[in-house]
């Protein structure tokens, strides 16, 4: 029989579990772990349970959220690639000379404003890429969801019929 444990479970493990709670969608699990710990389970047991819960939930999360994951990977890769080709190196010229010229203006400004300027240009550049990627993602996910696609098509064609009805009649 285990002795009752009046201490709180490891804070870091609880924090980690709370971070994953929206993913795990299982607050009762966190409550069960806390209750079992207070009934005398060890800290190492608690850690093992937390890691186990997260690892077990991951495949299901990846299955449910594969679109978001693909978007995150694709978008991160796109930003890195765009950044790499925008900055000229000894091997290649800038693929986006106008953007680079805008960025290079920061070199002529005195520090720390040069840093502020270049971070602002970089952020704006990444914002444009993310906006394009996000737009493509929504367009792509709509195409993958036939119900939404057909609803959208039905709505568009209905609106079109209503708008053009006076012309047709």
């Amino acid at each position, binding site marked *: 029989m285990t002795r009752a444990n009046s201490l709180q479970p490891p804070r870091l493990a609880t924090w980690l579990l709370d971070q994953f709670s929206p993913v795990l969608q299982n607050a*009762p*699990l*966190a*409550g*069960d772990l*806390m209750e079992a710990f207070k009934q005398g389970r060890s800290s190492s047991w608690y850690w093992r349970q937390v890691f*186990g*819960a997260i*690892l077990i939930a991951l495949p299901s999360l990846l299955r449910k959220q594969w679109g978001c994951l693909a978007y995150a990977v694709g978008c991160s890769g796109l930003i890195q690639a765009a950044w790499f080709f925008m900055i000229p190196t000894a091997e290649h010229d800038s693929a986006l000379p106008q953007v680079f010229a805008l960025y290079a203006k920061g070199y002529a400004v005195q520090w720390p404003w040069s840093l502020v300027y270049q971070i602002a240009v970089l952020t704006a550049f990444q914002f444009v890429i993310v906006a394009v990627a996000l737009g493509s993602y929504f367009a792509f996910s709509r195409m993958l969801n036939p119900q939404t696609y057909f609803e959208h098509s039905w709505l568009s064609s209905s609106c079109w019929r209503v708008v053009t009805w006076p012309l047709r009649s």
Partner: protein
Amino acid sequence: MKTGNHISDFELISMLVLLRLGDGAYGVPIAREIEEQTKREVKLGSVYATLERLEEKGFVVSELGEPTPERGGRAKRYFRVTKQGMREVRETRQILIRLWQGVPELGGGRL
């Protein structure tokens, strides 16, 4: 020939534990009972994953209780076996008994 969901050994164990515990079965006692009966440490995460899978199949239902301070304000989730789940357990038992009877090395169905 019947087609449909088969249950795994851990799903069967979980459903039998739910039946043993009766009303008021939630994560902690379920995991403890499984550990006592199997003599193995179980992950509460895998118990929940299994019970959620059984719930999707319609063999188990769950409901949330009231949040309590001892559990950091988190509610208990109570599970129970449905009639469909009971049928599935009985059918699985019959299948296992038939299979056992065909293997004399395992005692031919005698427990």
